[in-house]
């Protein structure tokens, strides 16, 4: 998995762009919470839209739409498609 040049956080993706989740940076509680919602490494995630003034991010993952706080979203690293 030596594609570190391409890997970025989902807050750096464009609206409508998708990517495969590579890793989640955060404590165990946080990553488990995300996994319970279907956000785990290897899953396809699409950024639907970001809000104004660096607010939360709306994503689509495993057929569901979720809103993630900015700080949280910055911890989800993906390999864009």
């Amino acid at each position, binding site marked *: 998995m030596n594609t570190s040049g391409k890997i970025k956080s989902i807050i750096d993706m464009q609206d409508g762009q998708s990517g495969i989740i590579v*890793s*989640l940076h955060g404590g*165990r*509680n*946080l*990553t*488990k*919470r*995300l*996994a*319970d*919602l*279907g*956000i*785990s*490494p*290897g*899953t396809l995630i699409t950024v639907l*839209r*970001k*809000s*104004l*003034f*660096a*607010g*939360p991010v*709306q994503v689509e993952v*495993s*057929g*569901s*739409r*979720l*809103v*993630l*706080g*900015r*700080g*949280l979203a910055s911890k989800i690293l993906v390999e864009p498609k």
Partner: protein
Amino acid sequence: MNGEKKINVVLAGQGNTGKTSVFNYYTGLHQHTGNWAGKTIEKLEGTLYYKDYTIDVLDLPGIYSLTTLSAEELISREYITKHKPDVVINIIDSTNLERNLIFTLQLLELECPVIVALNMIDIAKKKGITIDIDKLQDIINTPVISTVASRGTGLTDLMDKVIELKEKKHDRGNLIYGKEIENCIKQLLVELKDIELPYPHRWIAIKLLEKDNEIVKIIRELKPVIIEKTKHLESRLEEIHGHDSSLVIADERSHLASQITREIVTMTPHKKMSLNDWLDIITTHRFSGYLVMILIVGAMFFSVFSFGNWLSSGLDKVFRNWHEWWNNNIGITFIAALGWSAIEGVLALIQIALPYILPFYIFLYILEEWGYMARISFLMDNLMHKMGIHGKGCISFIIGLGCNVPGCLSCRIMESKRERFITAVLVTLVPCSAVSVIVFGLVGKYVGLWWALGLYLFATAIIFIAGKISSKILPGEPVELIMPMPDYKMPQLKSILYQTWEALKEFIYIAAPIVIISGVIIQAINLAGWMPAISTFLSPVTVTWLGLPAITGILLIFGILRKELILVMLAAYLGTTEFAEVLSSQQMITLAVVSMFYVPCVATISVLWKEFGWKKALAVCIIEIAFAIILAGIVFRLLNFVF
């Protein structure tokens, strides 16, 4: 009743799955609410009599997993494992199948009898999602019924299935995870053989590998060797998968859920954008989203307040006649006056509840059911974050603008205790409709509309600063927003009326006793002729520091009952409603500032008490009284430069 045989049924599922509709359909006439022992989390129970059976239904809190991260999650899994209900109905949102299945897998791990209800199947069909129910049934070896709970479709079949499952036990077997995980589970099962706990052994093994705090603690006390063994197995799993073993299990579940979904779901893609997509884009857009939000919330307040003022003044006339009747027929004795003040407390509540809170709740529940509240949370998250809480807190603020009581109650939507408390404290600073009466009736009318609006801006700034300070000094980490974005859907009249009724009932239950009792006490002090003494006693604060007339002391005491009494009593004491003749502009603004912040009204205090204990409620009152007095005194002095 005819029910000889008993069945215990539990409803479990994530939020927004229509769980409440199912619960109401079954138990609408026989419900009782209470609290989980030692928690402020609501416990909903009800009874259904069906086909010779007495079926007790318990609605578990809406949660996303069965880990021990939140109190709700812990309660749910403890209940299922300790009370061993006859059947657990897992309600699933068919339009979010994959995410919901992750929760289902966790339920199946608990080895309890489960029936899956594929709810909102009609919306799924509309979205072009076809689900092979038989295949799902085969894969998870568990009965599956499709339902549309809002219309009652499929709910009779579901209950028949419950009875069937109760009568003939069926061994489901377990779902198999990846080879390495199964290997670890097998090794742990050997160690766990002689452990006696209410939980299934396989589940304990999985939870150990997941590093579940609660289970690790229990096992460490019983047989510490197992923990050593687990650590060893975990490090092997971590070596293979490259991340923490708790994640390995969670990943396994989410991949299994997505594998199952792929096998049973056929999607017919839509060519055109649906109305839902259009609405979603407009209402969450970075510009039009805010515009729509201001329009919707503005329209809500405008219509609620116009309706409320109209009905309230109508009720006022009626109640004034009652008061006259009381004085003429019961007499004007000390006891009669006290009796009237008790009645007045009830009437005052009716005068808030019917004209303002009732239509306000109806509006809120329409927006909630429609799916709009989640959009507000999305749009406001960033701003809320700066106060140390996340976007959902904005909903409590909006409710608080109507009335602080339901505003504080709504703080239950926040995930952690810390968040709940901060939000509730900030809500007590939000100017409610009663405070708006003072701001507009005094400052807006006699000083100028812009000054009144300026006071709102001032309140916003104060709330902002208070939020920043409280999130700094209270221990704990802020929780980030994680929220499913629901699709827009048609609100159901029945469910809105039901929820409004429940919320209104709660408002009356909490507020009534304390409003009536404190009303009688204050009236007794008044009739005993102690009020002048009190106003003299308070005059160093009211006259010297705040620059207000001495009677303000009495007004502020009555204002604790209901804030708008400050204005009503002011008129009564001055003998005129032409406030400009007796108060200067800066006195009016100062009085409005004190009224805004000086203390939550008694009804709000009782909510704080109920939700957070009397110590915290008292602390909030004392801090806010001190803060408001200091602030208003400074404002008064600064205003000297303006006027």
